[in-house]
């Protein structure tokens, strides 16, 4: 473990490609160890005592923010949450100034979620401490991809040669982009499925197979990841109605029949029951949705532990 820790201390985690496959395996192994902590009666270890972690969220978030907070607290770090629903511009203080002010209070890590792609990368350049990308626009959400990888890895024992489908709003999804990068790094074959209006122009650059047919997407897949569809996209004229969307892209029990018998169903949440995923599928035996959430805490513990220099304790 020592070498793994040395590699990570003081670094940023902005995107999957910041990491090598070995480093990701190091994170996974660390996360497995921390998963046990959450199963104990006393869910706390002293590892990051005296460390300060600030989570700076410019977007609504339940899972990610809570997950980082719990992760930090279970490691005995002091965790401070700053939420602002509006962008820094309308708030009056620029993003740069906010980051510099937080940095001046000498935290050990700042978790940044921001609707603008690249904002965490900018924070990383000026903060003087580790910056963790908690999701930036449609760019990246590396800890989500890592916890998804852990979830798949735990069930399948590996990722290589697995066939994975990602279904939903690929265009606006940082989860899709980070997952594609992570899965491909470990040799999975990724298919994306969405109406053409919810795929980025130039999707070929992502190195994935593309289909607009959910039956085709799901057929023979080891893993099916569903993405949330936001009603806002309907107002942007990207599809006509949620009803029509779900008719074509909802993961129902019927659609699922063509998948492999040991298929894993995943979803980063929050789920819209009956829109992109049928209720019985979300709650069904193949669903790992809540397991992803559990792994989220373990993986974020691993990330915080390794970046914040837990090795010293």
């Amino acid at each position, binding site marked *: 473990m020592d070498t793994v820790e040395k590699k990570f201390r003081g670094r940023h985690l902005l995107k999957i490609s910041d990491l090598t496959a070995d480093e990701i395996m190091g994170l996974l192994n660390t996360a497995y160890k921390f998963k046990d902590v959450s199963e104990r009666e006393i869910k706390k270890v002293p590892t990051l005592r005296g460390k300060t972690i600030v989570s700076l969220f410019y977007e609504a978030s339940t899972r990610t923010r809570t997950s980082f907070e719990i992760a930090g607290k279970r490691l005995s770090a002091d965790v401070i949450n700053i939420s602002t629903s509006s962008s820094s511009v309308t708030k009056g203080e620029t993003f740069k100034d906010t980051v510099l002010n937080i940095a001046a209070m000498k935290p050990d890590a700042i978790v940044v979620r921001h609707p603008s*792609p690249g904002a965490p990368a900018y924070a990383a350049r000026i903060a003087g401490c580790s910056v963790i990308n908690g999701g930036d626009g449609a760019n990246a959400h590396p800890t989500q991809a890592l916890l998804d990888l852990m979830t798949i890895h735990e069930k399948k024992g590996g990722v290589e040669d697995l066939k994975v489908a990602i279904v939903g709003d690929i265009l606006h*999804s940082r989860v899709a982009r980070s997952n594609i990068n992570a899965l491909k790094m470990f040799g999975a074959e990724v298919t994306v499925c969405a109406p053409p209006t919810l795929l980025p122009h130039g999707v070929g650059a992502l190195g994935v197979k593309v289909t607009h047919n959910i039956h085709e997407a799901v057929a023979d897949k080891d893993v099916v990841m569903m993405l949330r569809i936001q009603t806002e996209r309907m107002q942007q004229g990207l599809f006509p109605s949620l009803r029509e969307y779900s008719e074509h892209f909802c993961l129902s029990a019927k659609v699922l029949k063509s998948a492999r018998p040991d298929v894993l169903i995943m979803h980063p949440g929050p789920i819209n029951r009956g829109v992109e995923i049928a209720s019985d599928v979300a709650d069904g035996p193949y669903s790992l949705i809540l397991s992803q959430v559990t792994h989220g805490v373990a993986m974020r513990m691993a990330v915080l532990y390794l970046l914040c220099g837990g090795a010293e304790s």
Partner: protein
Amino acid sequence: MSETILIKNGRVIDPSRGVDGVQDVLVKDGAVAAMGKDLAATGAKIIEAKGLVVSPGFIDLHVHLREPGFEYKETIATGSMAAAAGGFTAVCCMANTKPVNDNASVTRFILEKAAAVNGARVYPIGAITKGLKGEELAEIGEMKKAGVVALSDDGRCVMDARVLRHAMDYAAMFGLTIVEHCEDEHLVKGGVMNEGETSARLGIKGMPAIAENVIARRDIDIAAYLKRPVHIAHISTRGAVESVRAAKAAGTAVTCEAAPHHFTITEKNLESFDANYKMNPPLRTEDDLAAVKEGLRDGTIDCIATDHAPHAKWEKELEIDHAPYGIVGLETALGLSMQLVRDGVFGLPRLVELLSTNPARIFGLPGGMLKEGAVADICIFDPEKKWTVDPAEFVSAGKNTPFAGWELSGKNCLTIVGGRIVYNPSNL
């Protein structure tokens, strides 16, 4: 005060007459008094220009001087002096100030400010529509009388084709050319960078090339139908370049300009998420860049214009979605354009044509040539001079450039406007 200046032994280029050779140029009373070998003039200030190029002063058809309204970004004074530093003897400033230059009083204000500056000439461009809203025609006749040299809603496209049609027709009565910012605003809404493989990977909101292409085609069609001229600002896509090429072949009075950044760097730079790479039109692909170069070479693109767009440092440090579009260009234009000469895309005479002769012709401005009797708007530049771009040294108040730290070859040494030396840092 206008003085008598004798420029000795420079390589004098005047593309308007096919002149390219070593000779002397005598400047007197604000005009070129004589040209030829071994000129002499008693009492004249002698400028030794051996190894340097003596060119008609550059003319930039597209700058944003930010005054009135955004003086914290740039003023007419700093912009005019920055232009002179870059070898420009005249700049045409866009109307998207605050208030908008959509009436004669703003036009007069700009000219009044410009008259007090000992830098490049400043020619205001009037708005096509009131408030740049694209709805009602601005008071074009009044502005013409006050001194505008062209019309543009630049920064915004005139989305209503009917409004543009009437603007072209109405402006023709005053001999004013419409300059169009070709961009379908519905197609680019909220966009930050060129739409394509890079934006797909980065998850940055895209501005597709078709947004420029479709409006360029529309405008060319309207111009052809009305038999009126149209000038396409900051052309950046292969599609638009090809449309202009075809339109010129068909005899349509279309002209266009390209900005140095569009023939120098591509969308790939957005991987850094640095807002100094955010401009409108956005940086495009290698293929578009090649098309712009080819257009500059074969005459499809008439001139180089900088789209000089100064912003405060803090504005470019905002999140990439919120940072404003644009970069400064006046002081890097020559160095970046000289790269095309070094790459063999075209020779020095064509460069001078693109930076001076053609822009003068397009808006019907004085300058753009060096001959006896012509206005003495001249720049003397060293085509080989190596220098490193340091925004802190810019004369412009705007330091927002993606070219900081670049080593360029080719720098302006001296600028003469109306027979007066306005820029001469190394005291030639």
